[in-house]
């Protein structure tokens, strides 16, 4: 990749965050610290990876102990459910007519798997080419 083509504010490199082995067990969920944040890495039921904020945006419970179900992670405290983009998709304790979940999104990062290792990129838009 060429440094010169990247504006200074855009992170130019992928960061190795875990090895594929970290998600090898029957419950593919693992804590990760990267980009100065505590995050949770998981593989959803479509086989895609998600790297999202670790603490539930509701009251801060730890999603590393979340229920791995419904193609995402569900907080055990009140059942708030998040997909791999960090979007909240369900708030099953809130009234049926509530649409609050639509406005709730955890930080999330682009992730790729290459040669048994998992890399993340913290920028927006099109990521740089991964040389790994």
């Amino acid at each position, binding site marked *: 990749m060429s440094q010169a083509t990247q504006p200074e504010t855009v992170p130019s490199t992928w960061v190795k965050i875990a090895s594929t082995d970290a998600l090898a067990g029957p419950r593919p969920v693992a804590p990760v610290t990267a980009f100065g944040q505590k995050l949770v890495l998981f593989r959803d039921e479509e086989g895609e990876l998600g790297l999202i904020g670790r603490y539930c945006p509701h009251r*801060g419970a730890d999603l590393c*102990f979340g229920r791995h179900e419904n193609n995402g992670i569900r907080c055990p405290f009140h059942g708030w459910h998040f997909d791999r983009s960090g979007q909240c998709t369900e708030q099953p*304790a809130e*009234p049926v007519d509530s649409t*609050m979940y639509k406005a709730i999104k955890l930080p999330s990062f682009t992730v790729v798997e290459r040669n048994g290792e998992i890399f993340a990129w913290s920028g927006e838009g099109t990521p740089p080419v991964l040389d790994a």
Partner: protein
Amino acid sequence: MITQKLNDQITRIGPNTPAGAVHRQYWQPAALTDELAGANDPMLPVNLLGERLVMMRDEAGDLILATREASADEAPTHHPAREDIRLVEGGPVYPVVEKNGICFAFMGEGEPPAFPNFDCFRAPESHVFAFKGLWECNWLQALEIGIDPSHASFLHRFLQDEDPSDGYGKQFRDKAANTDMPITQVLREYPRPDIEVDETPFGLKITSLRHMKGGLTHVRVTNQIFPSAICIPMSREMIITQWHVPVDDENCYWYTMFTSFDKPVNKELMREQRLKEHSLPDYAPLKNASNNYHYDPEEQKSLTYTGMGMDINVHDQWAVESMGAIQDRTREHLGRGDAAIIRYRLLLRKAIKAVQTGKLDRLPMQDMQTTPEIMGPLSNDAIADSDDWLGASMATDMERRQAAPWDATV
């Protein structure tokens, strides 16, 4: 979301802090009577509201809390041996009153307030069992889970119901009143309660309504007792009155009085159930962050919502400790299910302001005449026709009060 400044104001409780000053206007659980172990001359280390104390008897034989010397790097629940305890000459000394298994201390200035006439204080000693346990987090997040009626449908969900007849001394194991449904099933099948919050002379009355099939409504009434306690039903026979008492800003004890309306409490059984989950002398739970609360992903798939066993205390402990030592409320997003939490924070902020402006009569339960007249509070589960849930909730409570072998009338 609230500002960091406000979060600090409502959570920090050391000497000369705004919320600490509010706590110091109330009797605080300081030790279990069990911890004194019948000693005539006790020297029991007590760590309370950021102060390092020792419970002992004064020359008249009355229990007091005196200040002890402590190094700045002591562990939060440090428990020095008797021979290592040194009193601070001329340090503060606080009065202590023992009530049904708990030694309460008053750490404020001036006259202590009267005790309200709650069931846990009125019931005879035979009908009340007290215990405590350490949670490694700020007291406010520990209290807030107790005034959050919707979490029980998730955090405490059992994917299979136990036989309620095996549930003595445990939360949510009874059948819902007048039905064959275990409470666990009601909570699981109806996860979106309507929550009503009413201000009372003692704090808040919290009513959770779960509208069920067949025109029935499950009514669960719980209470916030200002500043740090809750009163909730445990079974048809027993209620729980539980304080979340700050050790310091980042640790707290729950102190619970289990009060029976019917038979004397089986204290040996309840003590044994709980002692095997805790280590002494600091009553630290054996399942904790250092061993991932014995989290088992297989169990989480098939049996419990958390994968942390059947003891709901452990679920609560995980939830509140996993937020961090002091929950970062600048990142929270409260919903309609958090109505009682929002209301409680307003009460606390009002109380902080009242203390700061010297208007102590604006705090709940400070009036010497009316506070002893505060009874109850009503705390129960009932299932009723949806158009008469309020009447049914009152009737269920009155029924057990009238049948009680002690004077539980209100």
